[in-house]
């Protein structure tokens, strides 16, 4: 009898396996954003440090979720008076019906004990009492403000990952930029929200166009050296400069491919043309062959098989695309003065800086534009706001960081990729040429 059962077991299993769930739905009318409430976390222990850390945590989490761009955040003034600290505390109807009328609720508790902080966080679908939990997480770390900020970033990224369709959040990403606040133009880094600004290079010369490698371990940039403008390399594994091949002539604007190759503009043969080398600087290949100048290459970050670049071959700089082997060169912009292309992570869009009417007395300014590569349709992202340049995509493809002169000095701003929700990230000195990390 046992044998008989074993014989037929696979059959039962397959029958059970095919009874899968069906989901039905449709698209056509547009989508509303998820209405998300983030209640202040409760303190779970009696410690003097709790209050400060909670403040840091709550504001960081709120800022991360709001910046994510995929939520309709429910204002805190609508919340019920009772903040839930545990799943058992939730009053579903109070959160799920107006005034808060939230779909999702992030809540939890934080407690310090013996200089260790423990954070428990949950994400609940408050309109689904039967199975409300979407996410439940616990974090432990030392009880410092920095550690708590990182915990808040991590929790926010988890929420964004779940509700944003599998695209990792950017709360833990970094932005690299050029700052002259020390008197020299050096490379600096900061968190995506502008916190934690730190100097990376101390060369005492001029360093420009920082570009972080896809794995985040190395930073390529162009710098004025004794032998002219060269591509230099900084290693975050070793926390120091590392050797990189020198090419002679003027070498500018490096750009990493997803596989770790580097494209840059070099005038070693007389005219600035686009070259490609592998990650160690070897295997140099020339991609364009004209009097250029060809500069600012940027790879298609999804496929790594196309490069967009700026060329002045017809006069004013225009944006072109080509295959990664240099074939099939196509002009993308039709007029004006277009520079600083940057390819979106999903490979679908280019963003760049464009003066559509160039010349004395012409209307319009240096603004950022977004172009759909396939259709060549474009939209303007910035309006009436000084000179805007050097746009760069965030790893989630929902944000763009850029440099703007709108406040009288060059500073770094971030915005959603539709041009809304602009936030200033830097204030000290002049800060330019931002580059967002790949993850």
């Amino acid at each position: 009898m046992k044998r008989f059962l074993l014989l037929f077991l696979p059959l039962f299993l397959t029958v059970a396996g095919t009874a899968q769930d069906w989901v039905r739905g449709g698209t056509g009318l547009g989508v509303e954003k998820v209405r998300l409430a983030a209640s202040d976390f409760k303190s779970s222990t009696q410690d003097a440090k709790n209050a400060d850390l909670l403040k840091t945590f709550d504001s960081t989490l709120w800022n991360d979720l709001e910046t994510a761009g995929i939520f309709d955040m429910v204002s805190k003034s609508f919340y019920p008076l009772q903040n839930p600290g545990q799943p058992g505390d939730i009053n579903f109807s109070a959160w799920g019906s107006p005034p808060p009328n939230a779909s999702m609720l992030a809540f939890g508790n934080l407690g310090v004990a013996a200089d260790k902080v423990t954070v428990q966080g949950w994400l609940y679908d408050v309109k689904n009492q039967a199975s409300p939990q979407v996410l439940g997480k616990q974090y432990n770390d030392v009880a410092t403000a920095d550690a708590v900020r990182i915990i808040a970033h991590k929790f926010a990224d988890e929420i964004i990952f779940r509700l944003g369709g599998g695209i990792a959040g950017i709360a833990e990403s970094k932005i690299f930029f050029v700052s002259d606040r020390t008197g020299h133009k050096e490379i600096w880094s900061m968190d995506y929200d502008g916190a934690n600004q730190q100097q990376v290079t101390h060369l005492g010369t001029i360093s420009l166009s920082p570009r972080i490698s896809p794995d985040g371990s190395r930073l390529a940039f162009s710098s004025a050296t004794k032998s002219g403008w060269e591509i230099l390399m900084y290693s975050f594994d070793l926390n120091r400069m590392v050797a990189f091949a020198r090419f002679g002539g003027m070498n500018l604007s490096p750009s990493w491919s997803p596989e770790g190759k580097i494209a840059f503009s070099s005038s070693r043969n007389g005219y600035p043309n686009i070259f490609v080398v592998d990650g160690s600087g070897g295997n140099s290949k020339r991609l364009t062959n004209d009097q250029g100048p060809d500069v600012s290459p940027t790879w298609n970050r999804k496929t790594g098989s196309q490069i967009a670049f700026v060329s002045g071959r017809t006069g004013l700089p225009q944006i072109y695309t080509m295959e990664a082997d240099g074939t099939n060169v196509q002009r993308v912009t039709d007029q004006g003065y277009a520079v600083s292309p940057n390819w979106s992570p999903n490979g679908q869009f280019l963003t760049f800086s464009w003066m559509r009417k160039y010349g004395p007395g012409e209307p319009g300014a240096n603004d950022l534009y977004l172009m759909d590569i396939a259709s060549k349709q474009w939209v303007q992202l910035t309006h009436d706001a000084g000179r805007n340049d050097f746009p760069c995509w965030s790893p989630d493809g929902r944000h763009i960081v850029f440099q703007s002169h709108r406040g009288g000095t060059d500073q770094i701003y971030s915005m959603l990729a539709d041009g809304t929700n602009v936030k200033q990230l830097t204030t000290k000195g002049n800060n330019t040429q931002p580059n967002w990390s790949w993850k």
Partner: protein
Amino acid sequence: MASTDIYSEPAGLSRPIAWSAGLHGAFTVFVVLYAAFMPGFKGQGWGSGGGGDAMGATLVSAVPLPKPTTETASVLATESKGLAQSQPKAQEKEPDAIPIPDKNTKIKKPVSSKQAKAEPEPEESNRIPYGEGGQPSKLYSMSAGGATGAFEFPGGGGDFGSRYAWYVKVIQQKVQENWLKYEVDPRVAQANRVYLTFDVMRDGHPANVQVEQSSGVPSLDQSAVRALQRIDTFGPLPSDYSGSKISVEWWFDYNKK
């Protein structure tokens, strides 16, 4: 001597033959009775229910979800976009359908061209603009109280849609983001719904994208399929969900206005 014995005993076979005939007969009777009385073999097997994962329709009955009262009889057979449309039209008198004429009676002229021109329906009143709520169709109902889950998506087999309504919302968002309507032939102002089916695997990537019912506009079908192809992942399925994949039926409404 022994060999002759075998041939000299013909009468020895009669018993086995009788047994054989008897057993054959018994088996025949058994088959006839079995076919007559066992319900499973009564020729109603095709499409009548149970098993089969090709069509999820039969699984629906297992979900006791409230249905809109004015639901159309068949989702596939209607071209309407909303509830208002799906109600039966007032019967028009068809002049042609009057009794078979005699040889001598005059044949009435067919419907005048004037009447035919008045036919097109005011589609505009039926559209629900983005953000203004309402109940555009039964599948897109943001809960306004009384619903289960933040985003209710009734219909479909299994309870995935109600347990993980947030995941269905994610699918909706991603599809919307990746559907490029400019890929549709610009001469088309409006088209029937196109229905796709696809699977979402455990790690969240869509697979087996197929056009279940074409809209009749090839470029629209194509744009819908490409929207799915453009999506790398919807995010991993909820970690406490036990299945290895979910099957999705998704429609696309195209209206240029």
